[in-house]
């Protein structure tokens, strides 16, 4: 009897949003699956465009889908080298901090109506604030490596943060103005018209900011392989290097969820039977939308090369910043005209 009670208690604990959301969906476990499949999809899409077959070595019958798992396993068993010259405590601590900060936004992101670990009227701001702290950890990674390329990369990260942060915040807040709330759950409920139709300028600017933030082409400036080898991650090896590489995709995943919530009507239309079975399952459509957004972002790699740092900065401040302000104006007009 005692055992049964403990098991039930454990299951109910696991299924409570406070545990399920950050650990399983949309948090850690799902993020891991996303990481493995999106990178695979990115390589497959690029391969298709480039007349190749892409990864096929591992699980050939399934199109090499487990290649990333194999790579990850290899990272796991690879020696983690700590260079003599680096600032050791920071060198080891920074990637852990980065990973923690990259996972934190999932605490604010609701997967389905009423299903979010931290209910807050400011969940949009919370999620954005946490994501914008990741670059600090990356800066620390680059700086503590004591490597010329890593420091260059860290400086680039700082510059890029300056370029996209204001753009992302203002364009997201424009939607806050349009919906009259900074609560992501409320924002979805108030989208009678998907945000992308309501304020396309804001959607576009947020999208560009999100590509910049997650360091995907044409803005993969921080890693800058052709100039600075791997930027802030150049001295890292083994699983920590894998984490560094995964960081960008985690950020992309968090931003894609935010994009889907703000502009693509989130989990609407809600699949009621699934939702009634278990609330988190109501987030299936949200996940599908976010996944499509991610696929589109990684597809850009097949089309673009890399912009120059100063071009990205100029674009951020001279093009996207004014556009973000314009999107606020549009939202104000929408509000005054009386959409909400």
């Amino acid at each position, binding site marked *: 009897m005692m055992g049964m009670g403990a098991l039930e208690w454990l299951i109910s604990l696991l299924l409570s949003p406070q545990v399920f959301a950050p650990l399983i969906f949309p948090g850690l476990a799902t993020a891991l699956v996303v990481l493995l499949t999106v990178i695979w999809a990115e390589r497959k899409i690029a391969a298709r*465009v480039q007349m190749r077959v892409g990864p096929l070595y591992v699980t050939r019958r399934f199109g090499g889908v487990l290649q990333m798992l194999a790579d990850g396993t290899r990272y796991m068993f690879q020696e983690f080298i700590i260079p003599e010259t680096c600032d050791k405590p920071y060198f080891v601590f920074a990637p852990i901090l980065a990973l923690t900060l990259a996972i934190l936004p999932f605490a604010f992101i609701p997967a389905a109506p009423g299903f979010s670990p931290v209910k807050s009227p400011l969940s949009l701001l919370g999620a954005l604030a946490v994501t914008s702290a990741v670059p600090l950890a990356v800066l620390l990674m680059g700086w503590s490596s004591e490597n010329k390329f890593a420091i260059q990369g860290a400086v680039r990260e700082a510059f890029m943060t300056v370029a996209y942060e204001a753009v992302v915040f203002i364009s997201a807040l424009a939607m806050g103005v349009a919906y009259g709330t900074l609560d992501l759950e409320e924002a979805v409920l108030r989208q009678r018209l998907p945000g992308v139709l309501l304020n396309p300028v804001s959607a576009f600017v947020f999208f560009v900011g999100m590509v910049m933030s997650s360091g995907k082409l044409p803005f993969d400036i921080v890693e800058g*392989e*052709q100039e600075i080898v791997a930027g802030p991650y150049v001295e890292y090896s083994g699983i920590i290097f894998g984490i560094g590489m995964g960081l960008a995709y985690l950020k992309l995943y968090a931003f894609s969820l935010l994009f889907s919530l703000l502009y693509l009507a989130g989990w609407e239309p809600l699949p009621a039977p699934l939702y009634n079975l278990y609330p988190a399952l109501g987030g299936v459509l949200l996940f599908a939308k976010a996944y499509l957004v991610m696929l589109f972002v990684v597809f850009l790699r*097949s*089309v*673009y*090369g*890399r912009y*120059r*740092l100063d071009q990205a900065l100029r674009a951020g401040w001279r093009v996207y910043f004014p556009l973000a302000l314009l999107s606020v104006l549009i939202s104000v007009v929408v509000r005054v005209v009386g959409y909400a």
Partner: protein
Amino acid sequence: MRARLLAREGGEEVYELFIGPQHPSSGHMRFIVRLEGDVIVSVDPDIGYVHRTMEKLAEGREAIKVIPLLERMTIIDSHNVTIGLVRAMEKLLDVEPPPRARYLRTLLSEMNRIASHLYGIGIAGIMLNHSTMFMWAFGDREVWLQLAEELTGARLTHTYSIPGGVRRDLPQGFAEKAEKAIRYMERRLEEYKRIFLENPQVVARYEGVGVLRRHEASRLGVVGPNLRASGVRYDARLAEDYAAYSEVEFEVPTFEEGDAYARMRQRVEEIKQSMSIIRQVLRKMPSGPFFAEKYLRLLPPKLRDQVLSTGRLKFPAIFATMKLPQGEAVARAEMGHGEIFYHIISDGGSKPYRLRVVTPSFRNVILFRYLMPGHRFMDFPAIYGSLDYFPPEADR
């Protein structure tokens, strides 16, 4: 230009980076790049990492064996790199290739040129992290490699031209295959334009970057597409009459801008011209032997008949010990990267007494020093890619 060169070097505010020899985009060499903030103050190209003593090695082997050796300098352009050598040896030996051989040489040279330019475009693509351009160019290069294999029996190390002619005759049905390849390439060049050359992101990276003025280009002794993209109409195919270039019609495209963008478009225009030359060559291909009568006569009758009927030359031992008459000869040829120059001195033995080769990449490497200062650090790979610089060729 002077102001750019006189920028201060050293000092507290200068950040020195060693790019290479183990670096994703250094190639087989090292660059010492000095930065002030994000702006390049100076670049020192440090060459010699793949120096293989080609000239010295050439002195140690029989003349005919020098050809496959020197192919290794620019393995991606191996016919163009050795045709100058073959011409110089022919001048010493006083032998002329028959017309059909001259046309066949032109044919392979132009196929090589296309493959070499595609290689350059692909590398330039990946230097901007444009992986699609990289994969496309390298994939389409395969078309020309297979065509070259069809003609010569080897994908890269053709050793096709030899003193007195070529090693193999045109295979059956080659013209149709070449025409198919040309049509495919014409279609692909349009697609390159859409994905790369007219892609706003790529144009933003190339336009106005690494400008090489006309007078600077000629003063620095730059050669090849890099020179022509700066508005100088110089091409060794016109300057020195070799192969069948005087009998086909082609234009030497030039651009006035002299920037990285012009250099990239220059290569595309040259691919178009090369394809036009291949078409003309296949149309005008004269009949007759593909090897000089003077040497064919040396073959035993049975072997001679076999060579003429199969269209494949088997080397008799006599070639290996062939003596180069005493004297000197010079020759030049236009490679994909630019003009290559050969100077052979012979003391009458079977091995060259001295062989001097000046390669186009060696002449172009100076550009790293001149074009980079004043640009952003991220322009470094963009300019490098646009120069189509090939370290093993420069180092020899």
